[in-house]
C-alpha cells in the first residue's frame, strides 16, 4: 500500500481499512491475509523524523482497524510495536528524488543504471526481494 505523507493519503486509506476490518474478524480464514500487507512511504523526505511521521500515522490505521487487541504480555498476536521493522505499518521509504520527476530513460540511458535508481529505490527493492524469498520459502 503506497502513499505520500499527506492527510489525504490517510483519510482515503481509512475507508479501505474500515472495509478490511470486517474480514479480519473472520475466524475461519486459514492463513491470515493481514500478514501480506505492507505500507510503502512514497516520495519520502530523508531522515528518521520523516519516516517516523509516516509510520506513526500508518500505525494509527492499523491499530484502529487491523491489529488485534492483545493482553499486555501477548507479544505473539497480530499487533506490533511502533518501531518493529517487521510490522506492516513500518513503512518502507522510497526517497523523493527530483531526478525522477524528469525521468526519461529513452534519451538518458544512465537513468537506468543501478547507481541512479538505488538512491531512492534500493531499500525498497531489497525489502521486496527479502519478502518474496520469505514467501517462497513458506510455500515450499
Amino acid at each position, binding site marked *: 500500500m503506497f502513499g505520500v505523507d499527506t492527510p489525504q493519503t490517510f483519510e482515503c486509506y481509512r475507508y479501505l481499512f474500515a472495509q478490511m476490518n470486517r474480514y479480519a474478524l473472520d475466524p475461519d480464514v*486459514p492463513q491470515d491475509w493481514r500478514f501480506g500487507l505492507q505500507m510503502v512511504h512514497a516520495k519520502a523526505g530523508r531522515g528518521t523524523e520523516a519516516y*517516523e*511521521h509516516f509510520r506513526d500515522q500508518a500505525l494509527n490505521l492499523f491499530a*484502529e482497524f487491523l491489529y488485534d487487541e492483545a493482553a499486555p*504480555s501477548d*507479544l*505473539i498476536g497480530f499487533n506490533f510495536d511502533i518501531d518493529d521493522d*517487521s510490522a506492516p505499518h513500518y513503512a518502507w521509504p522510497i526517497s523523493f528524488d527530483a531526478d525522477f520527476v524528469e525521468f526519461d530513460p529513452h534519451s538518458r540511458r544512465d537513468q537506468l543504471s543501478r547507481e541512479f535508481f538505488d538512491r531512492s529505490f534500493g531499500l525498497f527493492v531489497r525489502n521486496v526481494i527479502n519478502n518474496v524469498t520469505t514467501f517462497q520459502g*513458506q510455500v515450499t
Partner: protein
Amino acid sequence: MNGQEEIRNVLRSLSPSVAHRAADKPNVADIYSPPHHANALDPNRTLVVGGRGVGKSFWASVLFNEEARAAAAQAYPFLGLENLDVVLGFYEGAMGSENVAPSASTLKAALKIADDPASIWRSVILKRLAPEVGPSTFNDRVRWIEGTPEAFEDALLEVDQRQAAEGRTLLILFDALDVLATDWDSIRTLTRGLARLALELSARKAIRLKMFMRRDQFEDMRRKTFADFSKLRTAAVELNWKPEDLYGVLFTRIWRDQAARPVLAKLGAGLQLDISKPDLPESVKVNPTTQEALFATIAGEFMGTNKKRGRTYTWMPKHLADAHNETSLRSFLISLKEAADRSSSSIETAIDHVGINAGVLKASDTRLEELREDHPWVDDALNALSGLTVPCAEGDVTDLWREAGTVGLIVSRTNAERPAAPIQLDAPEFTAAPEKALLEALIDLAVIERRSADIINVPDIFRVAAKIKRRGGIAPRRER
C-alpha cells in the same frame, strides 16, 4: 541428540541476576571485551556514563582486580592497563576505617564539617597517597586538609613524581555514585566535589580519577549545569551494548564451554570455525550476518511459524530495548536463560520463539523491579497507567495521573532519608502542571518515548510488566 542440549545447558547456566559490586572479584571467564568499550576502561577518560545493568560496576571490578586487569590488558593492549595501580575510592558497600573508600555514613558526617566538598575526597585519596600524613580519623583529616592545603599538595606531588618515575599510573575508581548519600542534594554536592578534584588531578602525570555514573544522575548533574561538572561532561564516555556485542557475549560463553564449542562449530559448518582456538573467531564477534546465521541454528530463524513475524536475531534486542534504544546485557542474559529453562529436548533447537517470548516477559519483570529499587516513585506512576493502551496522547497519561492523584501520593511518600520523588518535581517550570514533571522524569529514564505530535509510547521492556497494552482494535478471536 543433535548437540543442542549442550548449547541449552550453557544458556541455563548463565547467571545474570547477580548485580555486581566494584569490590567483588570478577569471574575472568565472564569478561567480554567489545572494541568500543576501550574508552570506558581508558585511565585517561574520567567519566563513564551508562544505564543500569550495562556493566559499570563490572568494569570497575575488572580494573580493580589484578588478575582480571591482566586479562583486560590483553584485550585492550593500547590502554596501558598493565602499568596501573588501582584503588577503590568509593563503591557500594564500602565500610570501616581500614578501607580507602569511605562509607555513606562517613561521607554524611564529613559533609557537615567540610567547607569545600572536594576536601572530603582529598581526604579519601590522601589515605592512599600518604597513609601516615595528617590525622587518622576521617573528619579530622578533612579539617586538617582545609587548614593546611599545602601539606596535601606536597604529598600529592611526591606520589605523582614517584609513580611517574616508576612508569606506573595510580588510578582511583569511584563507582555507584548514586549511593554516596540517601538524598539528592548531598549526592550532588559530593559529586561536584569529586568532579572538581578530578579536574585538578588531570594536570598530574601519573594520578587519575575515574568515575562510573548512572545515566539519570548524569542527566541531573547536566541539567544543573555546574561549572566543575560541565568540563568533565563533554569528555564523558558512554557505556552501552550494541546488538552484535550482546551476541558476541552469548557466543563467547558457548565457545568457552568444552562440550558446547564443537557443537557450535558444527552448526556453523559453513563458517569454518577453528575449535582449537581458545578465543571466539573474530567474525562471530563483530559480523551481524554471521551472528544471525549462527543464532538461527540455535533459536530458529523466525519468531513463530509465520515468517512475517520477525527474525529472532533482531527481535530479541529490539524487544528488550528501552526508549533510548539501549538493551542492557543483564536483560539479554536473563531472557536467554529463561528461554533455555522453558525449552526441552522436544524442540529441535536449543531455544525457540516460545521460550524467547517468555524470556522477554521475564526480563521485563526484572527490569521494572530494578527501576523500582532505584526510583521507588516509578511504581506509583506506572500503577496508575495499568490498562492504558499505547501509543497514546501525552494528555491521556497526565489525565490518568491527575485523576488518581499520583503526584500527591508520590510527594506524600517522600521523606528526607529517601530520594523517592523525581527530581523534576522541584523544577519551577512544572509547578502548575506537576504531572508533566512526572512525564519528563519517565522520558529521562527511557521508560517513555516521546513520538511525533504529542504522542508517547512505552517500549515493551517496561510496557509488559507495567500491564500497559498496545493499541489494537480487533477483539481477541478464538483459537484457530
